């Protein structure tokens, strides 16, 4: 699980072009949207693509994203349970 969290942080920084941010800047329970990393709606779509491309998870209900993408902790837990690759 810790390796997955590290991987998620690295991918988020790279895929979402968070230029001035490093892995150390993202705590496992930081809010990804809102007051935390302040990601926007396009970032949310990129995260959905990332789940599909990297872990074979297709989100059919966009409302699910709200809880899945709450933090690195919630993303890692969901991926661990649902990944197909």
């Amino acid at each position: 699980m810790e390796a997955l969290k590290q991987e998620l942080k690295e991918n988020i920084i790279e895929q979402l072009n968070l230029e001035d941010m490093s892995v150390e800047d993202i705590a496992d329970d930081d809010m990804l949207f809102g007051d935390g990393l302040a990601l926007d709606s396009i970032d949310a779509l990129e995260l959905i693509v990332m789940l599909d491309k990297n872990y074979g998870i297709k989100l059919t209900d966009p409302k699910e994203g709200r809880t899945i993408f709450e933090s690195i902790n919630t993303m890692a837990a969901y991926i661990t349970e649902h990944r197909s690759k």
Partner: protein
Amino acid sequence: MNTNYNISSYCHIKNQQVSLNGSVIFSEESLEFSEFIKAAYKALNTKYPKFFKMDNLSKLAFLAADILLKNEQIDSEKENDIALVFSNSASSLDTDLTHQKAIQDKDNYFPSPAVFVYTLPNICLGEISIKYKLYTENSFFIFERFNAENLMTYSNSLLETNKAKSVLCGWVELEGENYEAFLYLVSNEGTIKHNKQNIITLYNT
């Protein structure tokens, strides 16, 4: 039509150089565009994290506009009455090709939403408008080559009909490693007469 308008500032980004009103303010040779524009952003103290999410055409247009408008001491915290009239030849082809690569393999079909949103040339006008609170007229023309006469006629018309107090206009072209931005601000201020010959002379500076 009143044609007594002036050019108060102009900015070039090309050949790994950034210049403002004819003076080089940043230069970094032997860098590819993505590294060059990032180095210029940092050296010119731009401080706008969303910059790194933009495509290359928007980065080029945004940085040129930001340099010029900061020089004009435009307050980005207040609404500004500046229209935008930009042009180029390649439209958003650079980003269109990036998007096309992501969708050409049906077995590996993962188009990026963050790339797709930049597959129109006028998106760069939106980026500038967000930073400087411009709720004004904006247009992006596709010309075969730099067209001083058309830009002049259109910006004069906007000023004459009180659509805006000033017009930021010019040419923003990017295709791979070939890039060129030339922007200039037209209004009642400034000392360079806004006419076709002066626009061409500044463009070729």
